[in-house]
């Protein structure tokens, strides 16, 4: 996308280079496949048509070269909604109650997008991979470490592609910032800390229209005690992982991705202090220690679901020469320069950063002008993109199926992040610091 200070061609070249650099650095990226049928549209099914399924659908409907052929959901209300909505969009799909019926009924599927509740991710993903279908699975990979590990193992044994939905890994702004600013320009200097957060205001539990009740037998068949648990599965142990896995998963993954290593320990505090009908923690505060050769960098993460205060959702990397605050929302992103840092003029000239306002730079001679206190220098990332937040990550997945890309977040890479997210919940329960070895984060 064109921005004020970077041309479309420059941007394409820059982000492509950023992506390529990351691919080389990643090392263990899943190998691209050979396009099985050049020019043919990929047949895609969506498993799970809840809130996240609807978000992904909006991207699936505008990505070129794919055909949504089926939607799966155990809730007939959701299936009917999907059919009606897609008909308005001019898309005819077949609907199924579960993934087994899907795989029995659809014999020409190239990809399945999994957006059902976390505790179904591993069974659905493993079955699809074993049926020879590539899978894009929403994070968390699973509600258990064992489930996530099984998905990596199935990916390896089948040779099919398994992309995990940490969509920031394909976000051009994130790719640019990591490759050009953090790695190439070392804009933060030596990284000493990171901080991320995502807070949400109190909300009523999800309900359901009276006419849309699922029979108890069906609920039990799919692992739910009742409709309340079905609609609010994220809050229940055995089904989801609470706010740390719902919101924290995205951002703790950025800690691992941008630091380039896994933490050696985690300590955390949290509790079920507010809601009376939930099992997972309302609020959580987590500290990871990332061991670098020149010293430890600590990363603090907070997710509160009893207040939305705190300035929105972002990940901030802090060093001795600058801080880089990233968010999916560009308005929440900024770069701050430490007074001791070398000049950033060259970075401005190269369109790597853009000054929000002329920085205060008094002349170093005998004169001085006195006026209002100058603002601290702040800079923008001059990159934007004209797509929905999940679209580039889905496109990366489909391009990988066609043999035109490598996955930006294959399951084995995602496992390293998701392992330490599970450990944060474990640290809260244990009430103590938990050490994490380099070997245990490997699937």
């Amino acid at each position, binding site marked *: *996308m*064109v921005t004020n200070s970077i041309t479309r061609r420059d941007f394409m070249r820059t982000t492509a280079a950023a992506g390529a650099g990351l691919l080389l650095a990643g090392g263990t990226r899943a190998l691209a496949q050979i396009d099985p049928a050049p020019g043919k549209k990929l047949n895609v099914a969506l498993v799970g048509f809840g*809130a996240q399924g*609807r978000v992904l659908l*909006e991207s699936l*409907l*505008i990505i070129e070269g794919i055909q949504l052929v089926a939607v799966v959901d155990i809730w007939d209300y959701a299936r009917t909604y999907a059919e009606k*909505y897609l008909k*308005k*969009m*001019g898309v005819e799909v077949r609907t199924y109650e579960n993934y087994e019926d899907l795989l029995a009924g659809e014999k020409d599927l190239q990809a399945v997008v999994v957006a059902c509740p976390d505790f179904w991710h591993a069974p659905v993903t493993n079955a699809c991979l074993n049926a020879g279908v590539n899978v894009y699975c929403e994070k968390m990979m699973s509600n258990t470490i064992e489930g996530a590990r099984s998905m990596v193992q199935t990916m390896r044994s089948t040779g099919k592609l398994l992309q995990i939905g940490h969509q920031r890994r394909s976000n051009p702004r994130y790719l640019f910032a990591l490759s050009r600013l953090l790695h190439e320009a070392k804009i933060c200097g030596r990284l000493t800390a990171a901080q991320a957060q995502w807070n949400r205001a109190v*909300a*009523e*539990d*999800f*309900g*359901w*229209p*009276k*006419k*849309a009740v699922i029979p108890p037998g069906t609920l039990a068949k799919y692992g739910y005690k009742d409709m309340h648990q079905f609609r609010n599965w994220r809050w229940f142990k055995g089904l989801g992982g609470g706010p740390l896995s719902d919101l924290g998963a995205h951002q703790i993954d950025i800690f691992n991705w941008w630091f380039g290593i896994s933490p050696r320990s985690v300590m955390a505090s949290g509790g079920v202090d507010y809601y009376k009908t939930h099992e997972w923690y309302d609020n959580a505060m987590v500290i990871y220690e990332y061991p670098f050769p020149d010293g430890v960098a600590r990363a603090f993460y907070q997710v509160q679901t009893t207040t939305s205060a705190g300035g929105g959702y972002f990940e901030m990397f802090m060093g001795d020469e600058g801080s880089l605050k990233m968010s*999916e*929302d*560009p*308005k929440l992103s900024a770069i701050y320069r430490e007074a001791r840092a070398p000049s950033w003029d060259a970075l401005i000239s190269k369109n790597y950063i853009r000054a929000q306002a002329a920085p205060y730079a008094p002349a170093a001679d005998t004169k001085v002008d006195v006026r209002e206190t100058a603002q601290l220098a702040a800079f923008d990332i001059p990159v*934007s993109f*004209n*797509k*929905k*937040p999940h679209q580039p990550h889905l496109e990366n997945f489909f391009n990988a199926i066609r043999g035109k890309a490598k996955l930006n977040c294959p399951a084995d890479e995602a496992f390293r992040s998701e392992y330490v997210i599970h450990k944060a919940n474990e640290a809260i329960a244990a009430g103590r610091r938990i050490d994490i070895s380099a070997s245990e984060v490997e699937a």
Partner: protein
Amino acid sequence: MDPARPNERPPMIHVHNHYAMATTFQVRIAGEEATYAAQAARALFDEVDRLENLLSRFRASSDISAIARLAPGETLRIGEDTCACLAIAREMETATEGAFSITAAARQTQPEPPRWTLDAARRTIHCETGALEFDLGAIGKGFALDRMAVELAEWECPAFLLIAGGSSILAGDPPPDLPGWSVGLGDEGSEPRHWLKQGSLSGSGIAVKGRHILDPRTGAPAKLRDRAWAGAPSAAVSDALSTAFMVLPEPDIVRLMTGRAEWQACLQDAGQWRVIGPAPAAIQ
């Protein structure tokens, strides 16, 4: 309840508030169990948040922001909600002969209104000229109210009143034992009161933001009157109409409303009130 005393709220009305689209949305549901009404309200607020992500020009990943970044000659696929909202906007631009337009603000930075075409069947928008800097401020909230009502129908809560920032309201059935929802035109507690049911009412004016409404045909601030209200079955339509009525001379309003029995206009100039058009069934 006496409509002259609107503050006497019947006991079975459940009220829930939510911040979205730079204002406060309120849902009032009558005649339902409290928890059920609260969960229905949450579903409606989720719908508003979803629409804001698509329609806000202040959200970088919204459809409206993506459309604003189109260069002349480019085409973009958009979602059903955005397409439906833009279709209504285009329809109302035609119906008001340009007195309402979502490119009114763009006239301040562009010499000519940007031109665009919408392909509703393919869900695409094409930028012909200029930059499509749409501002849905005068229609987006009403569109959200309409979509909230669709969602509420799924919950089978017929007696409701939906409010967006006080300037647009959409009523379903009245509360039990009442002929409608008590509505006044103007400031809190204004007289006379009216009963509203199964319809929408929107207001525009200078009381809060000054003369912020721009005439899309000239790009200049609207100066004809102080306040205008519009009634219509749809909140998106009444939202667009009340804005248009701020810039249209009265004879033009009368002419445009000919044959539009479902529309109503109320104008206020220097303290003088005039109602134009037949009072629709929604407002008694």
